[in-house]
């Protein structure tokens, strides 16, 4: 989240799209209702289903799964054609005035630079136009035909209400009614927020959906302001923290980059990873990359990280190819993975395409599953249809501790790191994650000492300075993450103190300041809120530097005066910034540099040359779609997707549309959290069985009765369960045809108090062009009434 949970109460309009917070984040959703009830904010849901969130919303708009960019693009056009944008904000804080180079073009669904052979773009054709001094040319009038502002206008001119209706399936009138509300915040005295979640990320165009939303919010001047922002509602308790600390392919803690083979020296890695300023007046904060990176190497390799060995740079594995979730399973499917270790992760039910995952798992030599509970993915060899006698995979299950048996911190969706107390001891026979990891480390290290083997210098060099090296404490680790001055031993209070000469260490620069000499900031419990805006600077600790709203410099105008004095993020008082922890130098005068200090542009990007699938978001159909792409039939889907071998054959083909006529989408329900809750009796009681949501009209057509059994199948697999026949999903008219949407929840498997179909039997093995996040939200199925299974 750019903002945080309680901040939502400050909004005038709350758009919920690609999320269902009443269902998945009920206690955070209270702040949306608080805004509705106290500020008379308007709450709007846009979703393929009328959800529990819609039940309390002022307005609901039903759209077809996978048509989000068309809808949001329609909003961009609505803003621009009706001059609803926040003109001063757009001019001051975005790259609207930047001129794009002449090589840029967009025609028939393809941006310039597309290479048919590799299905990749050459992004150099999207670069800014540079003046002789090397900096980007700008036109503050925004009139230049190649200014970002004009290109945006031109690009989205095609997204007329008529087109939006044709693609998404809603009516033009309904779209316009919603657009009027959502686009009403482009003024200094109004603010709107967007709440989204995996309903956006889990698409082949997921990143671009979020980009479109960011464009909407930037045009309306809503980023950086209390009550505004673009707020990703994250799923698990510490999914934010685990991302920050980089249990993630391609990155290191603090969003540093995994080195690439072409970066053959530390210097070349730093050069490639450190952005250069594109304008004169930008802080270009990522320019400090070398300080963060070297300090991390010092935290990891201590005295073995010295200038003469490039601070241990070659201790890190280098990889260019994608190593994300789908690629991992593709490797396993090809028989290239020997061992697979899953901690706290039911990797089978997580999907996609369960039967393909089962094939892949059976090709592993061994698998280790670490979790408090036994789970489906540990027992994959017992899955329906599997023959244990034919599966060679050895499996080790290790019971580990619970959250309540450990202290330590969780970082929530709003970036607040909160420290937990340990309530009870783990039962005898159970070990902590830390113990298991340490024990693995030591035993592997000792084996290498005894026997030698593949390059073990990094293992022997890894710092492990903990009082009990077989089970470090959470405090020791939190302090290592925070970092210290290696000369004095003093813990740092800010990443501003980090150096690139090896004299400081910090495991994760982003958390620097969370555990300074003053003590554990994450454990703070002061409840005061002097801002009145719910910032609570004395409660826990928020990265970075306890800042509660990211990009908050943009909450004020060029002179440093808040756009709205009643909802002031930060304000310049002539000497310093007051309010939230400024996302700017505390004493840097307002005009000295751009408001978005993390970008080399110094402003926010309406046009972004950094993504793989285009600098301006464009609507592409899901890989399985009930319609042609009416914008460009010849380029129906995202042209730069990664196709793993054998995947095209697992998709419904164009001539199969009659066999799989219904878009289907997968989701969670409030009574369950993924899969672990199948161990909780009260929750199983509250939502006992796998079900399928079938629209009333379709049910009538198909003879499906409410409460009866239905079978749903895709090209990849099938599920069966109780039908919930509902009025909450209506028929849509997509490109002249009636389209019905089916809904399926994700929580069931073959292990647990009750069992049920695995929703991911249905889903396709394909991911977003930028993140590799799988397409769980839009694919095609068929449905029929069946007799109940014995």
């Amino acid at each position, binding site marked *: 989240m750019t903002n945080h949970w309680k901040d939502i109460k400050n909004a005038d309009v709350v758009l919920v799209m690609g999320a269902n917070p009443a269902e998945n984040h009920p206690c955070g959703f209270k702040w949306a209702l608080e805004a509705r009830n106290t500020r008379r904010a308007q709450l709007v849901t846009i979703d393929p289903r009328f959800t529990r969130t819609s039940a309390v919303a002022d307005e609901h708009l039903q759209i077809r799964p996978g048509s989000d960019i068309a809808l949001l693009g329609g909003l961009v056009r609505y803003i621009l054609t009706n001059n609803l944008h926040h003109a001063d904000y757009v001019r001051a804080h975005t790259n609207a005035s930047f001129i794009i180079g002449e090589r840029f073009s967009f025609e028939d669904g393809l941006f310039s630079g597309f290479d048919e052979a590799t299905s990749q773009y050459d992004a150099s054709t999207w670069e800014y136009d540079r003046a002789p001094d090397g900096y980007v040319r700008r036109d503050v009038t925004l009139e230049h035909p190649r200014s970002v502002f004009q290109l945006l206008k031109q690009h989205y001119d095609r997204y007329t209400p008529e087109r939006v209706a044709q693609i998404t399936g809603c009516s033009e009138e309904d779209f316009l009614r919603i657009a009027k509300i959502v686009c009403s915040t482009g003024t200094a005295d109004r603010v709107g927020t967007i709440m989204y979640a995996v309903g956006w990320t889990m698409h082949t165009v997921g990143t671009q959906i979020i980009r479109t939303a960011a464009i909407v919010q930037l045009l309306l001047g809503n980023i950086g302001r209390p009550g505004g922002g673009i707020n990703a509602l994250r799923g698990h308790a510490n999914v934010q923290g685990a991302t920050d600390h980089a249990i993630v392919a391609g990155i290191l803690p603090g969003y540093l980059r995994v080195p690439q083979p072409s970066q053959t020296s530390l210097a070349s890695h730093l050069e490639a990873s450190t952005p250069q300023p594109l304008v004169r007046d930008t802080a270009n904060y990522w320019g400090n990359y070398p300080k963060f990176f070297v300090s991390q190497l010092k935290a990891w390799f201590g005295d073995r990280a010295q200038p003469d060995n490039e601070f241990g740079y070659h201790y890190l594995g280098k990889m260019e190819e994608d190593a994300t979730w789908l690629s991992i399973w593709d490797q396993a499917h090809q028989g290239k993975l020997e061992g697979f270790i899953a901690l706290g992760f039911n990797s089978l039910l997580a999907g996609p395409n369960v039967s393909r995952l089962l094939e892949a798992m059976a090709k592993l030599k061994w698998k280790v599953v670490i979790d408090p509970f036994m789970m489906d993915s540990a027992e994959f060899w017992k899955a329906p249809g599997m023959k244990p006698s034919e599966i060679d995979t050895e499996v080790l299950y290790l019971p580990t501790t619970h959250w309540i048996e450990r202290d330590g911190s969780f970082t929530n969706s709003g970036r607040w790191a909160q420290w937990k107390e340990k309530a009870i001891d783990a039962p005898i026979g159970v070990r902590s994650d830390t113990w298991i*990891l340490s024990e693995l480390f030591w035993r592997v290290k000792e084996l290498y000492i005894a026997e030698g083997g593949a390059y073990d210098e990094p293992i022997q060099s890894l710092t492990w300075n903990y009082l009990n090296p077989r089970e470090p404490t959470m405090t020791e680790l939190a302090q290592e993450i925070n970092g210290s001055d290696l000369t004095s031993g003093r813990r740092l209070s800010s990443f501003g103190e980090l150096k690139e000469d090896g004299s400081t260490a910090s495991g994760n620069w982003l958390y620097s300041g969370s555990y300074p000499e003053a003590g554990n900031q994450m454990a703070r419990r002061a409840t005061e809120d002097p801002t009145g805006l719910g910032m609570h600077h004395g409660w826990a600790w928020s990265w970075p530097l306890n800042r509660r709203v990211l990009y908050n410099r943009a909450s004020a105008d060029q002179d440093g005066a808040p756009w709205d004095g009643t909802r002031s993020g930060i304000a310049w008082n002539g000497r310093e910034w007051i309010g939230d922890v400024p996302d700017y130098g505390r004493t840097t005068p307002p005009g000295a540099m751009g408001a978005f200090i993390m970008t080399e542009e110094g402003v926010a990007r309406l046009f972004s040359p950094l993504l793989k699938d285009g600098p301006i978001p464009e609507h592409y159909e899901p890989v399985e779609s009930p319609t042609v792409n009416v914008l460009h039939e010849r380029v129906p889907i995202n042209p730069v997707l990664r196709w793993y071998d054998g995947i095209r054959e697992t998709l419904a083909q164009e001539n199969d549309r009659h066999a799989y006529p219904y878009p289907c989408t997968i989701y969670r329900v409030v009574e369950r959290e993924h899969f672990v809750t199948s161990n909780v009796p009260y929750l199983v009681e509250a939502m006992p069985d796998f079900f399928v949501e079938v629209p009333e009209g379709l049910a009538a057509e198909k003879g499906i009765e409410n409460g009866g059994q239905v079978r749903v199948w895709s090209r990849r697999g099938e599920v069966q369960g109780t039908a919930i026949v509902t009025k909450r999903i209506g028929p849509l008219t997509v490109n002249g045809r009636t389209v019905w949407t089916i809904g399926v929840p994700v929580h069931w498997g073959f292990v647990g108090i009750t069992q049920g179909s695995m929703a991911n039997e249905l889903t396709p093995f394909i991911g977003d062009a930028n993140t590799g996040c799988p397409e769980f939200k839009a694919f095609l199925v068929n449905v029929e009434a069946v007799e109940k299974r014995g």
Partner: protein
Amino acid sequence: MDVSRRSFLKASAGSGLILSALGFDLRPAYAAVRQLKIRNAREYRTVCPYCAVGCGTIAYVHGSGGLNTTPTVIHVEGDPDNPINGGTLCPKGASQMQLAISPRLRKSPMFRDARSSEWREISWDDAMNWFARKFKEARDASFVERDEAGRTVNRCEGLAWVGSATVNNEDAYLITKTMRAMGLVYIDHQARI
């Protein structure tokens, strides 16, 4: 039958005597109500383990920790001081107690041999020795020091580590630190899906 409240009043005023004569017990003026079950519990402030709202919770624990006692969670409810949730919890949060002390929690490592259709119990020591041995074997077999172009890559291609979005920050950091030092590149967690 339609009897007004007034007539009830009159009727029962006259009936008191009859009832006393029948030896009816004196009506208690106060009723004992159920004991507050968390009255003598110790409180620990923690955070809900489910979603990323980060609701503050209070775990109520019974048991002195003395001889023959094992402190256990008897109840969990929202922490009213927490500014995010202000003490509220959704059904998942409200049933945390059942997750915390579930009889379904496992207490021993288990091993599944190749082609077996059963689990067997295994000691922690054997489990970790096996784990370390297999880890090293796979690393040794799949470690690439230089790629085809002769560039130093120092990566282990035959092992993958996934998870978790449910561990502490501190453990998440230690996982990354350890696995990257081991040369793993196939590292991911639930944020991807």
